[in-house]
């Protein structure tokens, strides 16, 4: 089942990428080609084979709950596009309905 241009546009919205029409035209067939190729994994992965999320097998790693030095506010804000009152200044996050 080929992936449609509409589906690609939906994925772009989910991914927070404001893709241009030209990019959508270019990406849709490429994604379709890649997804058809990677679907091969469905040939061999029979039910009952446990999934591997990572290779080391480590679980629940904690460090001691001790305070350690951290970044100063100036350091933490040093790369910020906009700053106000020692905080990250961001665009409006709530939109009136």
């Amino acid at each position: 089942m080929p992936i449609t241009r509409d589906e690609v546009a939906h994925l772009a919205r989910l991914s927070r990428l404001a893709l241009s029409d030209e990019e959508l035209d270019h990406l849709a067939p490429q994604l379709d080609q890649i997804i058809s190729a990677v679907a091969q994994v469905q040939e061999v992965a029979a039910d009952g084979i446990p999934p591997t999320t990572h290779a080391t097998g480590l679980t629940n790693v904690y460090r001691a709950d001790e305070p350690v030095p951290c970044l100063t506010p100036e350091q933490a804000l040093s790369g910020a596009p906009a700053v106000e009152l020692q905080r990250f200044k961001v665009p409006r996050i709530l939109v009136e309905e």
Partner: protein
Amino acid sequence: MSDLIKKTAAELAAAIAAGEVSAAEVTQAHLDRIGAVDGEVKAFLHVAADDALAQARAVDRKRAAGDPLGALAGVPVAVKDLFATAGMPTTCGSKILEGWVPPYESTITQRLRKAGAVLIGKTNMDEFAMGSSTENSGFWTSRNPWDLSKVPGGSSGGSAAAVAAHEAPLALGTDTGGSIRQPAAVCGVVGTKPTYGGNSRYGVVAFASSLDTPGPFGRTVLDAALLHEVMSGHDPCDSTSIDAPVPPVVEAARHGDVAGLRIGIVSEFSGDGYQPGVMTRFTEAVEVLEALGAKVTEISCPHFKYALPAYYLIAPSEVSSNLARFDGMRYGLRVGGGSAEEVMAASREAGFGAEVKRRIMLGTYALSSGYYDAYYGKAQQVRTLIIRDFDNAFSQVDVLISPPTPTTAFNIGERADDPMAMYLADLCTIPSNLAGNAAISVPIGLAPEDGLPVGLQVMAPPLADERLYRVAAAVEAAFTERWGHPLLAEAKGLSGE
């Protein structure tokens, strides 16, 4: 050109420690070399000339004061631009981080500084380490010092090219699907992907967290081992790092020996798609190993052919999650107006390149409701099957070998807009990332048809990294004796050479 740039890291560290040459002279010689050839090679995104000279002078002062010197004191190291370096720009090859200077430092570069290494600059890479050629860099494409019309491999292509062009004796890279071993192979240098968890990812900008593995480049096996040892070890700041002793890689690199060693050739990694000259050199390397006393057999790893498709589901899925942090709110590029969501979408659109967008979308697809089980879930099951293939193989042999990549360096532009062709460059390297084990690429000669370098990949079980160096050192010694000089002495790609 100064003789200093032709010396190995081991020789430079010894000469500096003995007071035969100052660290400042060594750094200046490499800065001069960068000035002379990097216009052609384009390996560096940022050359930290003043900073590097200050680090070198600090080493010289320590030596003059009689203080103990670290293992890499005064040795210049080029750093892939994925490692956060305080006070030095860190872009990950992306426009979205252009000009960003991190407020903190990666554990690995901290360890290098502690060992006296001189961080000489930041090297070019495919954007966020996604690619096999550096053509996906947001800034420019680096060139292969053997032939400037060819790619240096990727994603750590700048680091491999810098070492091959004698701009630095050592370099740091990262390997998520082959991003150290493939560029090492096509630039004719040594590159290692250590065991996953053998070192710290703290301060290494995340691409695919379950696969990303920092590792060393060097022109010799011993040099790669020296950097491997210094950068390795447990770090409480990375909960995936393993609390175990660092494998004795330097000791192994000093004692190359394969007598009695059981070596398995991966049957699946040959045939269609493999360049004849790559297989000619591989066959020759097998003969060399047998002549040195290794017992070589062939071993089938039937699920390795599913490693590439599994990787292109797992890695993009982790990408879609990891790269969500680049939203134009706390650091990096911010463009456009309107709501936060509109600014995020516009900033990401402007800041990310085509391959990064492709992978974010692919990962979003593989993780989306209705497709998760069929794609991401199945890929994780394949990961188990690949680990089982390795377990079975390592119950019969000590190490596995294969070509690191099916071809020599390809032409710049040849695969740039054909993602599936580009992905094939990592066909032989991906299984070790999925299994989290250790692997190396060591030069074994030039392909007869194009005169470009070919490597040999050696793979070992997790935390048995020293086996890589024992084999690679034996191979290096045998071939260097046969050629009468190091392979890089034959590189003639740069003007004036």
